[in-house]
């Protein structure tokens, strides 16, 4: 697995963990791999892995069971979906509406286009 240079690795690892929780690879109340497993698998320093995991701990998405390991918090998936939906609005919907206005599309027309997307014009 490759990391890119544009963002610190611990942030990229945190993203991957979040995606794992969203997709159900790491189910709620399920255990996630240890710092050492992340370190060895991704060939990164354990301090980097710890930093990435701690971001999720601080966000209340993971919790520690002393002497056992790290687990996904109940409700983590819903919490992440909420955060991602908010980000989706900021990153995509706002700019889409802005672009639509520039093109002179009405709300109706835009909704029709979104529907067309859902109907299978895009995958």
């Amino acid at each position, binding site marked *: 697995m490759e990391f*890119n*240079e*544009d963002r610190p690795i611990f942030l990229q690892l945190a993203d991957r963990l979040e995606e794992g929780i969203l997709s159900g690879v790491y189910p709620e109340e399920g255990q996630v791999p240890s710092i050492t497993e992340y370190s*060895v698998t991704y*060939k990164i*320093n354990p301090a*980097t892995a710890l930093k990435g995991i701690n971001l999720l701990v601080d966000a209340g998405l993971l919790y520690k069971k002393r002497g056992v390991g790290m687990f996904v918090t109940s409700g983590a998936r819903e919490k992440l979906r909420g955060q991602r939906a908010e980000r989706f609005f900021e990153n995509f919907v706002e700019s889409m509406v802005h672009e639509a206005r520039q093109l002179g599309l009405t709300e109706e027309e835009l909704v029709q286009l979104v529907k067309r997307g859902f109907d299978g014009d895009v995958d």
Partner: protein
Amino acid sequence: MSIELKNVTKRFGQVEALKDVSVTFAGGKMCGLLGNNGAGKSTLMSLVAGRIYPTAGEILIDGEPADSNRAQGKLFLMSEGNLFPEDMKVKTAMNLAGGFYPGYDKAEAEALTERFELNAKSKINKLSTGYGSIFKLVLALACNAPYLLLDEPVLGLDAQHREMFYKLLLEKYAANRCAVIFSTHLIYEAANLVEHAVVIRKGRILKDAPVEELTAGAYTVSGPAAAMDEYLLGRTVLSESGIGGLKTAAVEGEPGQVPTGLEITGLNLQDYFIALMEKEDRT
């Protein structure tokens, strides 16, 4: 817990290999020692390992002189040289290693020998470059020393064996919390492994900082030459290159206000190192 060099100078005849070097390697950390050929990396490691002596200055390992028996029992240096008689068999050397390294685990060495498919019946001097490195890596990993000094550990190793080694090293590091000082020309491969980097050039320490700090403190910018020239004015440019009307530069510092048309990207440790060396070559 640390390796401390205080104002260390090492001369070989007329050549000053290290010039008044002061640096501390913290215990339990993995540190990359980066430098071009002849920069002084191997000299520094050999001095720490007590194989050669400083012309001036002091080296302490956990507060004790580097050449004391107590200090030497705590570290393992893997370097180009080989401490065993050249015509000794691999297996014999592995049986003897316990006498030199108190934490040496012979069973572990045998298991690693098998994993790397190293021929234990071969004489040390009959091994290929790659297997010569593997032989020394097996000892380094099995000696369980609190300080591991690895001078070009992956020299001659193929991609698969390098991958195996990086993973084994991380496992060992997680289990023992040993300090690792690691020099390599394959900076790209080691960049994510090490937490800290010391850059050495012409016998002097140029940088001594966490990897993240070094790479976050520099960036690449590219765009039309005219706009670039204006943007780069007054900034610390590490290196510059151009093709056609397009210019690319590695810059140290914060990007600040970036004019439209210019693109900013990150810099990895290897690119940072190369750019830094180019800047030093110019000055």
